């Protein structure tokens, strides 16, 4: 049972590829101010310019530098993705672990809420709510988090139920440990690999939905994001600007999501040793 998750992910080719992609996006997002001399919001030149030495990807319809928008857009995607990933994971742990440990009526209520959330299509709810309240970035993150913890909670609960009866968890109860202690010291650490996979799922879903919402024009129009870039570019699809406006945004989004998928795929193989042999070979 002693598995080093980091090592396992690094050992597989897919895992390494995913990690490299993710790292690339993160580095670009972090170093954005150094990689571009233009403010992505300010008009920097004439509108709809073709790519040139000063404007690598040209400018959009209001004269903003598209390269700047692309790299600042990575910041939004990652911020939303990782924030939602963490918050929904925490909610999943909170409800999943507590339901399994407390049991009884509490367990039943939590699990029915989870069932309800799984049945309701999340995207539609988000669109409805977002269209109504016009969320800014923090509210959007919160909204996505509240609507995306249920799957994780269910998996975590199931795993906790089996861990609960296992050796060292039982033993710590015979020292008089409280449920909180058992959860914190024994169960959550043992959930490790599952939590990692759930977290990456959460990030990927959030990146995708955020882009979708922005593409649909729901959300903060002042926020620079890949989804909004694609939406704006679509309006000018009759011109050839899509080559340096629409395509780079779409490719950036795809690469980010592919990177996340690869990492989660590698992490899953850690959980299921039957997959592992094939990965290593």
């Amino acid at each position, binding site marked *: *049972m*002693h598995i080093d998750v980091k090592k396992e992910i690094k050992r597989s080719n897919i895992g390494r590829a995913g990690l490299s992609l993710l790292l690339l996006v993160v580095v670009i997002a972090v170093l954005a101010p150094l990689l571009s001399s233009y403010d992505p919001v300010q008009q920097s030149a004439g509108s709809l310019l073709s790519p040139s030495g000063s404007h690598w990807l040209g400018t959009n319809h209001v004269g903003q530098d598209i390269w700047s928008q692309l790299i600042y857009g990575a910041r939004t995607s990652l911020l939303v993705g990782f924030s939602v990933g963490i918050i929904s994971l925490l909610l999943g742990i909170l409800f999943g672990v507590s339901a399994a440990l407390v049991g009884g009526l509490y367990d039943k209520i939590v699990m029915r809420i989870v069932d309800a959330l799984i049945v309701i299509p999340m995207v539609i709810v988000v669109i409805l709510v977002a269209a109504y309240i016009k969320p800014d970035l923090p509210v959007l993150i919160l909204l996505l988090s509240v609507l995306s913890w249920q799957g994780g909670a269910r998996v975590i609960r199931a795993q906790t139920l089996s861990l609960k009866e296992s*050796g*060292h968890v039982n*033993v710590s*109860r*015979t020292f*008089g440990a409280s449920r909180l202690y058992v959860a914190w010291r*024994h169960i959550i650490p043992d959930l490790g690999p599952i939590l990692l996979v759930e977290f990456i799922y959460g990030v990927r879903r959030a990146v995708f939905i955020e882009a979708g919402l922005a593409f649909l024009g729901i959300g903060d129009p002042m926020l620079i994001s890949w989804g909004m870039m694609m939406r704006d570019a679509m309006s000018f699809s009759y011109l050839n600007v899509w080559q340096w406006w629409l395509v780079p945004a779409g490719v950036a989004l795809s690469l980010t999501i592919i990177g996340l998928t690869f990492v989660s795929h590698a992490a899953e193989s850690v959980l299921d040793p039957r997959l592992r042999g094939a990965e290593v070979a």
Partner: protein
Amino acid sequence: MLEISDLHVSYGQDMVLNGLDLRLSDGESLAVIGESGTGKTTLGLSIMRLTEGKVQGSIRFDEHELLNLSEGEMQAIRWNRVAMVFQNVNNVLNPVHSILEQVAEPMIEHRLRRRGEARTRAGELLEKFGLPRERFSAYPHQLSGGEQQRVLLAMALANDPDLLILDEPLSSLDVTTKEELGDLLRMTDGRHARLVISHDLDTASRLADKLAVLYGGKIVEIGATREILQRPRHPYTRALIRAYPNMTTVKDLQGIKGRMTRPVSGCPFHPRCTQAIDMCSEIIPQLNWSQGRGIACHRGGIATLLSVVNLSKSFGSLKAVDSVNLSIESGETLALVGQSGSGKTTLAKTVIGLYPEFDGIVYLESEEVTSRGKAFYKRVQMIFQNPGESLSHRLSVLESVMEPLEIQSVGNKEQRRGKAIQTIGEVELPQTEDFLDTYPHHLSGGELQRVAIARALVLDPDLLIADEPTSFLDASIGAKILKLLLNLQEHRGLSMLYITHDIAAARKISDRIAVMLDGRIIEEGPSNMIVTAPEQPYTKHLLRSASSLALSGDGALSDSS
């Protein structure tokens, strides 16, 4: 006939007998037993008025108060009416007289008989004690130790005393001589009262109907010999019996923790007692009589630590444990024996609280256990079958052992660490930094189980539930774990509920065995009784199928007899 009350004897500052009370009627036989240094010999010498110590209190012999008699009056009683056989054989006999003369001498000296008569009677006595006529003219140095002892016994009986005091009469003899002389002495039963002083339980049980256990100059337990040996009620008596090699007990020998110290305030045994409470170090307990047994103990003798009344536990329609009654005494090992599926582990897990829903009552020291909180787990701990599973793979040895202390918030971090390291040493594991930082997957099975034991012991529990602790280990390592548990019991006075399917191992470690079948306890009793005289067919079956190294199935040993 003999009545000793509140007898104090001291040598300088050293109080050897400390308020001793004892009565002996005509023809009665009483053995006083105890470790060396408890004041046994001093008691005998005090009755003879031969002790050099300062004697206070009262020793009444018939109408005489021996302590008030003049030396001359005492002379008339000594050897005549009260005779004593001394412990050290070599120095007592006079090397220049033949043995016949020596036996005849007290009769002549006390002018009871004339010389000829005395010699005849001396000859009879010597013959009675198994010395052939041709040896009568031998000198002491020509006799073996056993023969010298025969001479001394004959000498003591020469004047037909009313009270015979025997100080270690048989202890140094070989077993056959011991049996022969024991029988000879038994034949004089009723003709005189006998006070046997010995550290040897076998001598005591051969020569006396009553037994008084002496510790720290006081009697701690007194009663009928058979009953005391079968069911000791004072912790010291039990410890003595456990330390005594014999053919009845099947459990391995155990010593008594610590050494005798003097002076001690309160109960003399409390520094070595495993169930001492605060009161024991302050107030001296008095002998309390009930049902023909006297016990000087504030706890009323060996206390019951845990009892289980009518406990049942079902899983759906399956009754895994069915109305079980059990009790475990302080410092005792109870082995729960049965095949897998008989409900042993379920019973243990119910007691420890891993199955919180059950029927019946669990008492911890006569208080009902309603909820199991930190206080309960401080006193009751469990070690599990598979040490690899019961230890977290993410915690190092030190972290694992410290975990209970952290949960119970004992002391500060430094103290917890110190306590954990000390306990790790106690289970005979290395205390080096390297080892303390090792993770479970780098340890062997035996080491893992030791870590698990250290973790269970670090809270200093009173009861340890051990669920097949050796079943995952090979025999030689399993044996070491069993030895370790026995040693821990000796030092800490742990009570143990030892769960096993292996009756051969159970008898080595347990005082009592309970046999479990289909959720019920079908037979329970002292280990030696269960092993040698089982009543239930299932118990017999268990014994028959237990591991045996005899070549021809049912035991080559019994065939040859």
